[in-house]
C-alpha cells in the first residue's frame, strides 16, 4: 500500500511528522484531500483543521491558523503559520513598530558619530579588560 510522508511544521516547532494514507487540508480555494501519488501542488491554507489519516485508520487533527501546503507524490508538507495573518493585521503590526521607533528616536540625529560610538565601546571594553587583569593578579 502506498504511503504519504507528512510533515506539519511551524516556524517555532515541528508539530507532526509521520506516515499517513490520506491528508485533508483547508486550502484557500476549498478543502482538499490528498492521497498518495497526488500531483505536485503548492497552495495557501485558510485557517482550519488539517486531518491526517494514519495507517491504523485513526485520524489526527491539527488546527492551523493559515499557512502553505506543499504536495509531492509521496511527501506532504504543511507550513503552518504561528499566528493569525491578514494583510491589515500585518500592516497594524508594522505601524506599531514604526511608531515605537519614532517615539524613541524622535529628534535624534540621523548621522552617527562613529568616533563617539567607538569611544563608548572602547570604554566598556577597557572596563572588562581591567576586571580580567585584576582577577588574574588576585589569583597569583
Amino acid at each position, binding site marked *: 500500500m502506498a504511503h504519504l510522508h507528512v510533515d506539519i511544521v511551524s516556524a517555532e516547532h515541528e508539530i507532526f511528522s509521520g506516515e499517513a494514507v490520506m491528508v485533508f487540508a483547508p486550502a484557500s480555494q476549498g478543502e482538499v484531500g490528498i492521497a498518495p501519488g497526488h500531483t505536485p501542488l503548492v497552495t495557501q491554507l485558510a485557517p482550519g483543521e488539517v486531518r491526517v489519516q494514519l495507517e491504523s485508520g485513526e485520524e489526527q487533527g491539527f488546527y492551523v491558523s493559515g499557512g502553505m501546503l506543499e504536495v509531492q507524490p509521496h511527501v506532504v508538507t504543511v507550513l503552518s503559520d504561528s499566528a493569525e495573518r491578514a494583510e491589515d493585521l500585518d500592516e497594524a503590526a508594522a505601524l506599531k513598530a514604526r511608531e515605537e521607533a519614532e517615539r524613541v528616536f524622535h529628534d535624534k540625529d540621523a548621522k552617527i558619530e562613529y568616533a563617539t560610538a567607538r569611544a563608548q565601546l572602547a570604554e566598556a571594553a577597557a572596563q*572588562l579588560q581591567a576586571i580580567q587583569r585584576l582577577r588574574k593578579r588576585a589569583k597569583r
Partner: protein
Amino acid sequence: MAGAKEIRSKISSVKNTQKITKAMEMVAASKMRKAQDRMKAARPYADKIRNVIAHLGHANPEYHHPFLTPRAEVKSIGLIIVSTDRGLCGGLNSNLFRETLRRMQAWEEEGKEIKLCIIGSKAAGFFGRLGGEVLGQLTGMGDTPGVDELIGTVKIMLDAYIKGEIDELYIVSNDFVNSMTQSPVVEELIPVEPEQQDEYKHHWDYIYEPDAQEVLDVLLERYIESLVYQRVVENIASEQAARMVAMKSASDNAGQLIDELQLIYNKARQAAITQELSEIVSGAAAV
C-alpha cells in the same frame, strides 16, 4: 576587637551577592538549554521553505521575484540589529555593536545610506544615544519570543525594500558557537541566495493555487520572517550563555573575596585575643 564586626557584616553581604549570582548562573544555564531547543525546533520550517523556493526558482526560471533578484546599484542598505533586552551578559552586546559599527562605517565609506531596524532594548539604548536612521524597533520580547511579535518589524524592512528605500537587507546578531563562545555575525537576508541543488534536474512543476506569484510572495515573506526568528532565538541562547559565564566568574570572584575577608577576620580575631591575654598577664604581673 577593632573592625571585626565590620568585616563580619561585609562577609555576609558578599555571601548574599554570591547567592544571587549563583542563582542567576543556574537560571541562565537552564534558559540557555531551552533556547537551544527552540533553535533546533525552528530549523525544519526554514529548511522546508528553502526547498520549496529552490524548487519554484528551478521550475519557473522566467519569473523573478524582487527578493530573489540582486539590484544593480546598491545605494541604501537596511540593517536589522538583534541585541538583548537586559544586561549582565559580559561583553556580548558591546562586541556586537563594535562589529556592527565597523560594517556600517565600511558601507558609509562606499557611499551607501544605512537604515536601521532595532530589536532589543540594549541596541535601542545604544543607537538612541548615537543617532542613526531607525525605521522600526521592537523591545521587551522576553525569553520566549514568538514569530508573531516579529511580523511588524520585519514587514517594515520588506516594505522598504519593495518601495526601493533600501536595496539590500542584512541582519546582525550573535552566533551561538558553543556555551563559551558567541561571535557577532552579519548575514544577508535580501537578495535571498537561491540554493543550488543538482537534484532538481527534473522538469515537473507544481500546480499553484491561487497562482505562482502569490504563492512565492507569501513563501518568501515567511522565509525571511523565519530567518529573523532564528537569529533572535540564537541571540537569546547567546545571551543566556554569556550571562551564565559572567555570573559564574562573578560567583568565583565573590568566593575569593570571602576567603580573603575570612583570613583578615581571623587575623584580627587572633590579634585581639593575643592583646587581651598580654593585657591580663601584664595586669597580673603588676599586682
